[in-house]
Structure formats: C-alpha cells, structure tokens
C-alpha cells in the first residue's frame, strides 16, 4: 500500500503545484520519482515528527497542501498536541499518512503497533479519518481527499496487502459495499477487510445473506447508511484492527445508542483488540490477529454463534 501512496501522491502533485511531501526519515527510495521531479517539494524532516507536523501546518497556512508521511504511531501519538492545536484548531489542510496500520508491524513490538491512533484522533474537532482497505481504494480516496482539503489522517498498511476492490464504487464518506445482504451486516475498516471478506465469503457459502462493507471514512461516519443497516439486519458484526476504545466499534455502538430504532434491536458483536498492550510474546501480523480474535475464522465464528 505504501507504494500505491507514493505513486498516487506523485500523480496528485503533478496536477497541483501546492502539494508538498514531507517524510520523517522513513520510506527509503519510495519517493525517488517524486523527489527527482519535484526536488523543492519534497522534504525529509528527519526523526523529528512533532516538528514536521507543525511545520506542515505553517506551510498550509501559506496556501500549500502538505502531506506528512511516517509510521502510524509516530505521526499520531508522538504529535498529538501539534495535531490538535496546529492542524485541527487552526483547521489547516494537512494530510497525515500513517503507514503500518494496526498490527502491520506486529513483530516490531508495542512501540510500532497502532491500536489507539483512531481513538485518539477521532476525539479531535475538524479531523477527518480515512482507512482504505487496499491500493485501489487508497488511490481513489487520496484523490478525493485532495478535492476537499482539511485536516485528515490517512491510515494505511505497509506493503504486500491483497487487492480487494474489484468493481465496487469507492467514494469518500460512503462505505465501500462489497455485497448487499439482509441477514448479517459485516463491517470492517481498512486493511482488516482482507479477513472480513474471507469470513463473509464463507458465510455466504453457508447460505447467509451478508452485507459486507468497508467503513473507510471513520470520521465523519456515514450515519444514514449505518442506521439503515440497523433496521435491515438482525445481526451486526464490526471488526477492526484497533483497540476496543475509540475506533469503529465504539463509533458504531455510539450511533446505535443514539438512534431511534423501530422494531427489534439487532444483536451486535464487536471484534477489536483488548485494551491492553500486547507484549507478553511476539509474533507477526497473522499470529497477533489470531491471538486477538480478529482473523477470518474468529469473525466467522462470531457471526454464526447464537
């Protein structure tokens, strides 16, 4: 996914001279093409993320459209107040790109996990949060983001994620619907959609009518779609590669609690990571997804459980 980001931001920059790319001493070689075409629009800001974020806000205040790129925890947690005061409070059009969403860098340990990033940033006024599930969706959504510039956090994977989008319509603010159904609604966000889709297919093979969607725009959340689904489906399963607090599960629970449902309430299953640091043992993304029960088979089991 990071290569798709590098390619797309390069394309966007070719059409919009205001785009400036900043990176925090990561992405070796990834931006070579961008750098050689726009040497004065690429800045390696070093291992100094907080400075990068506020300096990008300064650029934005002068009419530029900066994008800051580094590993998810370092562009979010590390810069929290810079993001709050300099991006969100002043409402400046900066895109923060966090690579290594969720457990992408599982084996690098807790410092490199991003399981609280959406929770933290979603508390901030003016912040938009977008989590594409694959390269194609990332490309489309990043272009949409640049059509309506505002403070934005784009949460992406690393590399080698499977391509998931085929003919589905992708639109910022609208869930990407992979299949429509009336029995079970299966929602995920971002790169965990690979697991969600696997589980969804199994459920469909078992004869269930399943609505599968990527709620990639986490903030603002599309309330209308979710409320409709709550009326339509009796069972709603929400999956995220994020802690249980402040992410998609929290947001959907919130929508439900505030909605005026007519008729019987659907039953919910929320699959997310417990609110605890995973450091007791190490493992790759697949292993930790299994451990935290957000992998395809855990999703399938949660869906068929009564």
């Amino acid at each position: 996914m990071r290569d798709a980001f590098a390619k797309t931001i390069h394309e966007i920059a070719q059409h919009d001279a205001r785009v400036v790319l900043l990176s925090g001493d990561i992405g070796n070689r990834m931006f070579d093409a961008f750098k050689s075409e726009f040497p004065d629009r690429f800045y390696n800001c070093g291992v100094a993320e907080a400075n990068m974020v506020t300096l990008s806000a300064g650029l934005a205040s002068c009419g530029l459209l900066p994008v800051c790129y580094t590993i998810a925890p370092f562009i979010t947690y590390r810069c929290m107040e810079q993001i709050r005061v300099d991006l969100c409070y002043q409402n400046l059009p900066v895109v923060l790109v966090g690579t290594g969403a969720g457990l992408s860098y599982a084996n690098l340990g807790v410092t490199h996990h991003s399981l609280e990033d959406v929770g933290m940033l979603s508390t901030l006024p003016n912040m938009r949060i977008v989590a594409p599930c694959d390269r194609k969706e990332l490309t489309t959504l990043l272009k949409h983001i640049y059509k309506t510039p505002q403070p934005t956090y784009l949460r992406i994977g690393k590399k080698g994620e499977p391509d998931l989008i085929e003919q589905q319509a992708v639109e910022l603010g609208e869930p990407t619907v992979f299949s429509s159904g009336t029995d079970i609604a299966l929602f995920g966000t971002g790169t965990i959609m690979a697991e969600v889709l696997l589980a969804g297919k199994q459920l469909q093979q078992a004869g269930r009518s399943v609505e599968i969607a990527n709620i990639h725009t986490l903030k603002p959340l599309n309330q209308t779609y979710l409320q409709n689904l709550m009326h339509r489906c009796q069972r709603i399963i929400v999956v995220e590669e994020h802690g249980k607090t402040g992410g998609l599960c929290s947001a959907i629970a919130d929508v439900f609690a505030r909605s005026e449902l007519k008729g019987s309430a659907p039953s919910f299953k929320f699959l997310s990571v417990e609110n605890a640091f995973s450091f007791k043992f190490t493992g790759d993304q697949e292993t930790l997804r299994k451990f935290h029960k957000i992998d395809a088979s855990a999703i399938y089991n949660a869906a068929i459980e009564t």
Partner: protein
Amino acid sequence: MVPNNSVLLQLAAQIRYRIVELSHRNHITHLASSLSCVDILCALYFETLNLSLENINDPQRNRFILSKGHAVLALYAVLEKRGILSADLLNEIGTNNALLGEHPSMNGIAGVEWATGSLGHGLSAGLGMALAAKIQKQSYTVTVLLSDGECNEGSVWEAALFAPKHGLKNLTAIVDYNKWQATGRSQEVMSLEPLAEKWHAFGWNVCEVDGHDFSALTDALNQESPLPKAIIAHTVKGKGVSFMEDDNNWHYRVPKKDELEKARLELLGK
C-alpha cells in the same frame, strides 16, 4: 577480572557473528545499526557497568538504557555473552510466540531497563533515573545509548537542557555516531554538525572517541566529571563485516545464506 583488549576483540567478533546469524535465521532487520554499537556495548558490559546475573535486579545496580531500541540484537547478544540472557530465549527472538521481540520490551527480561523502539525517549528516562539516584542518595550511574538520527528529536535536547542544570554527573549519554540514519547521511538529513559542540554548548562534559577502540571507550566512560557526560563515539555502521560497513542498505536488509558464510569467515576466521 577485567578482560584485556584482545579478549574483548574476540568477544566482540563472536557477538557480531551471533547478531548476523540471528538476523539471517529469524529475519531481523536493523542489522547494521546493531553492528555499529557492539564495541560500545562490550566496553560497557565487560569493563565499566559491573552488571551480572547476580546484581541485575539489585536496586543499587548501574542502569543502562538502549535508547536506539532498534539495535536490540546487539543488546541481547551482549547480555547473552555476559550470562544475563539465556541462549534459548535469544534463539527464538522475533519468531511467533517468542518472548523476545524486535525492540526491547517490558516483559520482565533481566537487563532491559526501558522499553524502547520509538526514538527520543531513552535520555529523558535516564534523566529520571539519574535524578532519582540523587533524590534517594544512591550511588548508581545511568548510561544511555543514542543514535545520531535520534538526535533529530527535540526531546533529546529537552533532556540535554535539564541534566547540567541539576548537576546530574551520574548520567552519561553516548551517541553512536555512525553518520547514517534510516534514509540518508545524518548530516544531509539535518544539520547535525557540529554535534560535539552542540552537547558542549548545552553544558555537558563532551568527549569524542573512536567508538571501536576499547581503551578509548573505557577511558571516556571512566572519566570523573562534575557534569553529565556526553560521549560522541565515532562509529561505522555495519562495523565488522566488510560488505556491510558503511552501506546503509543493511539498515533494512537481512543476510542470505552465502552472506552469512562470508560474514562468519570474516568474523570467526572459520
């Protein structure tokens, strides 16, 4: 008993081979970052820190923090050689369900003082420990190993402002100055130079040494000072394996089988 230089050289070569072998076998990156600081860690663990399995949990022990946590292989391989970490645990580093991960973490591993991996935290943590020693009238020392790219972080300089003000002479910062960071030459990414003068201007007692010379390192570490000490250790990233030296591709690359063999010949001579 303090080992002499030739013994240390041999230990360091064995430790380097262990690091390369683990990187190859368990697919662990940041190899060159680890090789860069092996001699510094050997000087600390075999000469000055006085840490062993017996005293590693003693509240009076000297503290060492690997602030450049991505060099975890170097720390663990040295702890293993020192008899503090078991070979069985280290063999499994980074594999599924293993206890040891690719950065030092807080899971009760003897010898790990701080969970690092996000750069720019270690010096402030060490500052807290050094200040605690002062408040509690303890005589232990605190040593923190930073990388040069890490000195981009503002937090490093916040800590640097604090330490001299409070006379924390029990605190030593070592910069593993290998002139590279993740995506380029340190001096090209930011204006790091003059690095020694920066620490000096912040009120530290600064000394520049060859970070691969045990005597120079030991002298610098042992030097008495009324101020916190900053040791700028000039090093070579990937030190010890000719085809990795000063080649930043080995920040991310993992050696293949034939490269491991070549490294073994160079390091162990067999």
